[in-house]
């Protein structure tokens, strides 16, 4: 099977600061990959590269095997890569539907459409359908976002990303600001997104969450991808060792294994 998205030999410098030395990464259709690593390991930087926010100095990104260049977040989105940002990029005064369709509004048919008239009913219907599919409990698609709980807002962000991310949905610490219960709901939502065949790249610091939803766990350390583990073939202990760097020797063996 071909990876939907592949990153080869990514390197990123901020001035003379090396944020990413060398990352190889791939994600396959319908897969959830957890990206783990200590503070400053380069997770956010890597995600910004994948979502077109910053540009890598070296390395290549391929979608469906074809090299692509993201000059802007908009371009990444055009390729079907959607990102749920850590600071929720929602408009709090707009309702759920307006936020999910923000920048992608459906217009009415005919002359009214050409004059820019919105097809509010169609958009509400579609959003209701998607909330239903993904089993998100929000009272009304016309609810104002500022009236929602933190978890519900996160759900709106994720539903939006899942609605448009044909190739990949990236989430940077989507549970960071949430309590246990709301986090569990977000994890369920990630499983729903996965069930619909959309690959998810999840950044998190909470290991149990990674084990709960991920098929694979990729560990970054000091700007390098050091481990790529099947979630059902590893455990918390091993992952922690990779994160902290107490397990490094195997890396060479594993890389060689990959090549061989």
């Amino acid at each position, binding site marked *: 099977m071909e990876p939907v998205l592949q990153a080869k030999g990514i390197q990123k410098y901020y001035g003379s600061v090396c944020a990413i030395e060398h990352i190889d990464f791939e994600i396959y259709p319908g897969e959830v990959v957890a990206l783990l690593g200590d503070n400053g390991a380069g997770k956010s930087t890597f995600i910004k590269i994948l979502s077109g926010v910053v540009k890598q100095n070296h390395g290549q990104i391929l979608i469906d095997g074809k090299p692509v260049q993201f000059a802007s*977040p*908009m371009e990444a*989105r055009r390729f079907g890569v959607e990102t749920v*940002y850590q600071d929720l*990029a*929602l*408009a*709090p*005064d*707009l309702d759920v539907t*307006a936020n999910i369709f*923000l*920048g*992608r*509004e459906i*217009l009415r048919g005919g002359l009214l459409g050409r*004059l*820019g*008239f*919105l097809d509010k009913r169609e958009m509400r219907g579609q959003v209701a359908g998607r909330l239903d599919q993904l089993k998100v409990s929000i009272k009304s698609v016309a609810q104002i976002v*500022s009236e929602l709980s933190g978890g519900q807002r996160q759900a709106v962000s994720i539903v939006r990303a899942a609605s448009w991310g044909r190739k990949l949905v990236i989430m940077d610490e989507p549970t960071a600001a949430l309590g246990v219960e709301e986090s569990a709901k977000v994890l369920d939502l990630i499983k729903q997104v996965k069930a619909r065949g959309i690959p998810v790249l999840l950044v998190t610091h909470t290991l149990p969450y990674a084990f709960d939803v991920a098929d694979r766990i990729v560990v970054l350390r000091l700007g390098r991808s050091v481990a790529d583990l099947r979630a059902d073939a590893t455990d918390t202990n091993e992952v922690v060792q990779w994160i902290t760097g107490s397990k490094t020797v195997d890396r060479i063996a594993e890389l060689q294994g990959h090549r061989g």
Partner: protein
Amino acid sequence: MDNIDGRVQTEDSQNVPAAPRAKSRAWLKRLGDFWTLGILVIILAVFGILQPSFLSVSNWFNTTTYMTETLLLAIGETYVIITAGIDLSVGAVEGLAGIVAALVMVALEPHGATFAMIAGTLAGMLTGVLFGLLNGLVITAMKVTPFIVTLGTMGIATGLTFILSGGTDVVNLPNQLSNIGNATVLGVFSFPTFVTVLCLIAAGIILYQTRFGRYVYAIGSNAEAARRAGIPVNRNLIKVYTLSGAIAALSGILLLTRFATGSPLTGTNDELNAIAAVVIGGTSLFGGRGTIVGTLIGAAIISVLITGLVILSVQPYWQTVAIGVIIILAVWIDQFRHRMA
């Protein structure tokens, strides 16, 4: 143990008032939507009791026509304030557009009154559009805050008004102008009121039903989110300020039709009334919230108050005092609601 106790306590102290707080919040919201209408009714009742002629047909024409001065500017200002901006130049642009239109009409009248009036109207509108465009371009391209930019263009427009008019009234406008201005439409509207009603309806429909309107709210609510969603924020802001300039010019031209004279003092301080009307109407200075209906009510309150004070023979200097008080009250309530939300 101490820790656990402490935590339980804080959770309690948050939980107990939570329900009443939510209730009072919903109550406040509803109040926020309707308190202005209530105040309008109270003011009308008070003036009606103090001076029964206040509720007469002729005063309906007076008040609604007078109201158009504030309301038109306030319509454009509503859009601007929903984007979390401000346009201080509307009054000055109104004045300048009126003077430009008047000068063109006087100059071209020998070529036919109708031609002169159309050309003058176009020249006036163009003036407003150019000033709005200038505001929008400077705000977006040079990244200067709207308050400062429009304060600057307000000065520029006021100065140009006096330079062009030589500081005196422009007279000898085509006679037909006041025929138009004093015409009655559909039996209940003066001509300026009728035009304003059309603008009001169009502005409301555009704001609630079109993608442009949606973007106006989105930009004011979270400009960064709008940008990330791929909305051309700057282009939409330029549109909003241009609209505000154009509608200010329209207001200036309608004033010409009423008085058949172009006065360089027209529009002075009118931006204050407009901003007051918008804020009283529930549009948030923080952006993202506001309605055209609210602005209509806000403008009505201000206009009724001022014409009422005139009818009661209160010294006209008290008018700006009253508006000053109202504007502070309205902003205070806006901030209060913002903190609750």
